[in-house]
C-alpha cells in the first residue's frame, strides 16, 4: 500500500497536464484519476480510484478493450484509440451538452518496483480540432464541387464555343463581323465562297471597298449609320458585287452587338446569295401570272358578251401584262373576206391619225401586221423603220411586236403591240405573247362555231315552233270536220229511214271517223312527248283500275270479234306513274291485241310470275313476223299492218307506248312468234312509297310507323324541322307527316318551307295534331296541307288517308 501511495503521489504530476489521464493496473483498478478528468466527467477521484474502471465505464469490460489493453500490462507496445473509432472513451459532456471527442493513447508504465506494468491512458480533447476538420472538409468539398461545376461550365462553354466555331466555319451562310466603322473583322469560308475574297483579303477592309457597288455606296453608308444608331437587328436584301465583278443579290441579317453599357461595339452579319432564289421566285411568279392571264382570257370566252367586247377585253388584258414592257397602245386585227384583208376590231391608245389610216380594210402586204400575217411569224422592230408602211409626221418613236393569231388551219388575225423605241427583243416575252395569240385563236374559233350553232338553233327552234303551231292548227282544223261528220252520221243513224245497207255504211263511216280522230290524237301525243311538252304527272296508281278502264274502251269491239278480254292484275297492285299515259299504253296494247286476234282468241293482262313491277299484255293472236320485230317501236318507215278483220291503223301506237314507258324510266318489250300470239311487257321501275315522319317525340314516330308497316312502305324520320330539310337533300318522300308543335321550327313553318321547295311543292303533307279543329288547322290549310289526323292515329282513318296518296 505504501508503494501504491507513493505511486499515486508520483502520478499527481499528471494533475497539471491539460489532458485527461487515468492509470489502471492489470486488474483494471483505477490507480489514478487526474484533475482534468474530474472536471470533464464530474466524477471525483475519490469515487473512482481504487475501483474497477468498468464500474463507471462498463465498455471497458468488452473484449475489444480488454484484449487490446492486455499487452500493455506486459510492457507491450503503446496503443492508439483514434477519435474516429472511439469518440468518447470516457464520456465527458461539455457546457453545451455535447460530449468531448477524444483521441487516446495507452502506454505501459512500470510500477515503482518495476515488477508490474500499469496502463496509462492519455485522453486528448480533440473536439475543436475535429470540428475544424469537419468544417474544413465541408468547405473543401463545397469548393471542390464549385470548382468541378465551374470546370463543367467552362468545359461546356468551351465545347459550345468549339461547336459554334465549327458551325461558323461550316455553315453555308456567310458570317461576317464588322467594327463600328464598317470594317471587316471576321470573315468565314462561306463569305469567301459568296464574294470571292479570302479572309486575309477581306479582314481590315471597309465593306464599300470590296462588296458594295459604287452606285450603292452612299446608300449603304446611310443604312449602316441607321443600324448603329437604332441598335436593332435588320433583315434586308441588297445588291453586292463579287471580287470578279459580278453583281449578285444578297439577303443580310445584321445584328448590332451591344455591351453591358448599351454601346454598340460591333455588328454580326449573316448573309446568303439569293440571286438564284430570287430569279426562281420571279420565274414562279411570272409563271403564275401567265397562268392567270391565260385563264382570264379563257374565262372571257365563256362570258355572254359580244365578239367586239371580247376582243376589247382581251386587248386590255394583254396591255396590262406587268412583266412585258408594253406601252398602253395596241390593236387586234382579224382576217376577213375569206382571208384577204385585215380589219381592226379592237384598239387602245392609238392616235386619231393612225386610226384614220388603219380603219379601212388593210390588204395583207401592208405594214408590219401584214408581214406577220403573210409570214405567219411574229415580227419585231425596235423603231419606226421603213418596214412601217403606214407612217405620218406626228408619229412618235416606238417599237413593235406583231403577233399572228393562228389556229391549226389558218391565220385568223394579228395582235399589234407597242413598246418604247430601242426596246430589246425578248424571246421569253415573244413566247408568252404567241401563247396568248394561240389562246385567242382558240377563243375566236370557238366563237365562230358557237355563232354558227346559235344561228342553227334559232332556225331549228323557229322550225319547231312553226311545226307545233302547224300541228295544233291542222289537228284542230282536221278534228272539227271529223267531229261534224261523226255527228251527222249519228243523226242519220238515229233517223229511222235508213236501210240496212245504209246503216252498215254509216257504221263504216263512224269507224273511219274514230280512226281518224285516234290518228290525230296519236300524232298530237307523239308530238307532245317527243317535243318534251307533255310532262308526266307521277303518282301512285292502281294499275288494275287503269287496265279495267282501257278494257272498257275496247270491250264492245272485242265482243264483236269474239275475243276474250280480261285483266288478272291484283286489285292492290301499285305503280308509280302518270295515270293518263299508262292508260294510253294499255289502250294501244289492247287495241293491237284486238286487231291481230281471231274469234276465240283471248287477251289477258297480268303480272308475270316472279316479277313485281312488270305488267304483261298477252294475246293468243296471229303473232308478229320476226322481220318486223326490230322496227316495231320505231316511228320512221311506219306502215300499219292490216288486222285480222282488215283493220287499219296509224302505226304510231306502239312507238308512242314505247316512248311513254321510257318517260317512266322503264321500258316496253315484246315476245312473239307467228301463230303463237304476242306478249308485250310493260317494265316499270320498282318504286317503294317513302313516308317521312317529322315529330320530336320518338314514341309517336314509332307508333305511326307501327300503324303503317303493313303497307309496304319505307320511312324517313326526322326529330325536327331542320333535320327534315336536311333529309330532303338525300331523298324525297312521297308523303310527309308533320307534327304541329316541335322545338325550333314549328310544323307550320316547316310546311311553308316545303311548299317553297320545288321538289316538295306538290308532295302530299298530312298534319298530325292533338287538335283537328278548323281554327287550329286554318293556317295549315292555307299553306296547302292535304289532310289532318289526330295523334291517336285511328287505324281506319289513317289507312284511308295514306291510301289516297300512295294507294
Amino acid at each position: 500500500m505504501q508503494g501504491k501511495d507513493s505511486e499515486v503521489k508520483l502520478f499527481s504530476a499528471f494533475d497539471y497536464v491539460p489532458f485527461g489521464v487515468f492509470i489502471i493496473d492489470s486488474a483494471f483498478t483505477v490507480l489514478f484519476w487526474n484533475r482534468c478528468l474530474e472536471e470533464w466527467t464530474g466524477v471525483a477521484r475519490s469515487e473512482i480510484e481504487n475501483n474497477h474502471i468498468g464500474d463507471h465505464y462498463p465498455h471497458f469490460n468488452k473484449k475489444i478493450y480488454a484484449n487490446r489493453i492486455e499487452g500493455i500490462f506486459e510492457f507491450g507496445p503503446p496503443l492508439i484509440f483514434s477519435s474516429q473509432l472511439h469518440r468518447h472513451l470516457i464520456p465527458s459532456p461539455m457546457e453545451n451538452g455535447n460530449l468531448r471527442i477524444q483521441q487516446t493513447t495507452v502506454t505501459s508504465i512500470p510500477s515503482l518496483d518495476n515488477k508490474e506494468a500499469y496502463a496509462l491512458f492519455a485522453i486528448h480533447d480533440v473536439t475543436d480540432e475535429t470540428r475544424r476538420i469537419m468544417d474544413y472538409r465541408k468547405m473543401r468539398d463545397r469548393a471542390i464541387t464549385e470548382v468541378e461545376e465551374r470546370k463543367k461550365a467552362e468545359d461546356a462553354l468551351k465545347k459550345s464555343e468549339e461547336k459554334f466555331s465549327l458551325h461558323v466555319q461550316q455553315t453555308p451562310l456567310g458570317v461576317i463581323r464588322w467594327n463600328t466603322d464598317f470594317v471587316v473583322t471576321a470573315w468565314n469560308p462561306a463569305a469567301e465562297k459568296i464574294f470571292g475574297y479570302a479572309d486575309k483579303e477581306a479582314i481590315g477592309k471597309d465593306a464599300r471597298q470590296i462588296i458594295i457597288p459604287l452606285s450603292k455606296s452612299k446608300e449603304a453608308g446611310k443604312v449602316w449609320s441607321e443600324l448603329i444608331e437604332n441598335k436593332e437587328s435588320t433583315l434586308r436584301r441588297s445588291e453586292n458585287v463579287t471580287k470578279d465583278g459580278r453583281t449578285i443579290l444578297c439577303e443580310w441579317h445584321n445584328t448590332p452587338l451591344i455591351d453591358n453599357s448599351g454601346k454598340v461595339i460591333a455588328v454580326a452579319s449573316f448573309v446568303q446569295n439569293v440571286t438564284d432564289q430570287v430569279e426562281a421566285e420571279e420565274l414562279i411568279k411570272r409563271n403564275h401570272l401567265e397562268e392567270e392571264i391565260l385563264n382570264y382570257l379563257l374565262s372571257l370566252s365563256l362570258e355572254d358578251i359580244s365578239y367586239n367586247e371580247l376582243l376589247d377585253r382581251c386587248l386590255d388584258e394583254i396591255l396590262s401584262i406587268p412583266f412585258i414592257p408594253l406601252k398602253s397602245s395596241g390593236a387586234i386585227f382579224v382576217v376577213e373576206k375569206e382571208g384577204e384583208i385585215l380589219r381592226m376590231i379592237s384598239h387602245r391608245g392609238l392616235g386619231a391619225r393612225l386610226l384614220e389610216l388603219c380603219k379601212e380594210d388593210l390588204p395583207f402586204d401592208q405594214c408590219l401586221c401584214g408581214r406577220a400575217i403573210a409570214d405567219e411569224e411574229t415580227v419585231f422592230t425596235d423603231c419606226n423603220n421603213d418596214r412601217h408602211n403606214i407612217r405620218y409626221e406626228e408619229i412618235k418613236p416606238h417599237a413593235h411586236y406583231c403577233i399572228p393569231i393562228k389556229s391549226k388551219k389558218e391565220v385568223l388575225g394579228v395582235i399589234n403591240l407597242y413598246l418604247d423605241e430601242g426596246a430589246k427583243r425578248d424571246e421569253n416575252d415573244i413566247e408568252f405573247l404567241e401563247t396568248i395569240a394561240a389562246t385567242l385563236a382558240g377563243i375566236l374559233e370557238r366563237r365562230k362555231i358557237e355563232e354558227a350553232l346559235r344561228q342553227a338553233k334559232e332556225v331549228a327552234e323557229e322550225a319547231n315552233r312553226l311545226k307545233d303551231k302547224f300541228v295544233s292548227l291542222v289537228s284542230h282544223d282536221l278534228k272539227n270536220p271529223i267531229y261534224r261528220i261523226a255527228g251527222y252520221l249519228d243523226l242519220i243513224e238515229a233517223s229511222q229511214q235508213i236501210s240496212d245497207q245504209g246503216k252498215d255504211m254509216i257504221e263504216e263511216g263512224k269507224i273511219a271517223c274514230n280512226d281518224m280522230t285516234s290518228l290525230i290524237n296519236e300524232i298530237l301525243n307523239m308530238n307532245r312527248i317527243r317535243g318534251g311538252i307533255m310532262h308526266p304527272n307521277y303518282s301512285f296508281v292502281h294499275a288494275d283500275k287503269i287496265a279495267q278502264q282501257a278494257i272498257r274502251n275496247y270491250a264492245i269491239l272485242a265482243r264483236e270479234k269474239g275475243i276474250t278480254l280480261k285483266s288478272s292484275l291484283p286489285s292492290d297492285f301499285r305503280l308509280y306513274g302518270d295515270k293518263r299515259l299508262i292508260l294510253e299504253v294499255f289502250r294501244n296494247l289492247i287495241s293491237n291485241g284486238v286487231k291481230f286476234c281471231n274469234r276465240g282468241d283471248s287477251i289477258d293482262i297480268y303480272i308475270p310470275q316472279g316479277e313485281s313491277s312488270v305488267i304483261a299484255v298477252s294475246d293468243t293472236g296471229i303473232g308478229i313476223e320476226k322481220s318486223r320485230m326490230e322496227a316495231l317501236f320505231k316511228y320512221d318507215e311506219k306502215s300499219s299492218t292490216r288486222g285480222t278483220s282488215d283493220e287499219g291503223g296509224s302505226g304510231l301506237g306502239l312507238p308512242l307506248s314505247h316512248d311513254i314507258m321510257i318517260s317512266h324510266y322503264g321500258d316496253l318489250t315484246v315476245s312473239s312468234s307467228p301463230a303463237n300470239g304476242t306478249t308485250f311487257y310493260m317494265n316499270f321501275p320498282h318504286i317503294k312509297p317513302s313516308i317521312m315522319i317529322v315529330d320530336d317525340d320518338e314514341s309517336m314516330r314509332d307508333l305511326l310507323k307501327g300503324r303503317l308497316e303493313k303497307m309496304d312502305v319505307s320511312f324517313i324520320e326526322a326529330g325536327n324541322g331542320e333535320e327534315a330539310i336536311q333529309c330532303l337533300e338525300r331523298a324525297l318522300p312521297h308523303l310527309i307527316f308533320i307534327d304541329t308543335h316541335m322545338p325550333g321550327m314549328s310544323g307550320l313553318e316547316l310546311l311553308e318551307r316545303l311548299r317553297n321547295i320545288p321538289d316538295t311543292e306538290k308532295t302530299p303533307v298530312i298534319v298530325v295534331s292533338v287538335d283537328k279543329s278548323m281554327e287550329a288547322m286554318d293556317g295549315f290549310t292555307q299553306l296547302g296541307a292535304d289532310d289532318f289526323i289526330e295523334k291517336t292515329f285511328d287505324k281506319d282513318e289513317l289507312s284511308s288517308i295514306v291510301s289516297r296518296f300512295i294507294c
Partner: protein
Amino acid sequence: MNWRKLSKKLWLRTTDNQMELNDNRADALKEIINIGVGRAASTLNELLSSHIVLHVPSVNIYRESEFLESIKSDDSEKLSTVHLHFQGNLAGIALMAFPPGMAANLVAAVTEDDFDLIDFDSVRIATLCEIGNIILNGVTGSFANLLEQRLYYSLPQYREDCIDNMLLSAGNDPDDLIVVMQAHFSTEELSIEGDIMVLFEVTSFDSLFSIVDNFIDSI
C-alpha cells in the same frame, strides 16, 4: 519505385541477397510473425466488425543496404505508413506500409466516409494509425513475448514518404537486417483488398536468430 514493382521485385528476389536462413529458422520466423498477425487480425475483426483476413505468404530477411539497393528507383512513390521505434535487446523500427489508395479506402470504409478521399487530415491519420498500430503491435508484441525481455516503444506515427527515405532518415546502419513481410489484407464486408508490407529492421543479427532459435526450442 511504385508499389507494384516493389512487391514484385521483393517476391522475385526471395533467394537473392538474402541472409542465409535455414529452413527451420525461416519457418520459425514465419510462425512467429503469423502468431502476431493472427492476433492482430482478431483484434481488427472486433474493432471493424468485419471479417479481416491477414495472410502472410512471405517473410524474408535482407541487409538494409541490399534492400535499399534493390528497391532503388527513380520513380518511387509515396506510401502511407505507420511506424514505431523500439529499443532494448532488439532494437529497430517496425513499419507498416499501405499501398496507394488502400489507406484512404480503408479509412473511408471503416468511417463510412466518401471513398474518394482527397486528403488525409489528422482525424483520418489517427484512424489509420490505430489500424496500423494493431498490426504492428501484433508483430512486435509477438517478438517481445518470445524474447522475454522488455522493449521500449515509441508512440506509433504516421508518415507519407518513400520507404527508402524512411529507412535512410532513421539513421540506421546499412548492415541492419530488415525482415520484410508481405501480407495480404482483405475484408469482404468493407470490399478492401490489397498487399501490405511490414518491415522489421533489427540492429542485431544474433539477437534475431536467438529469438528464432528460442522459439524453435520451445515448440
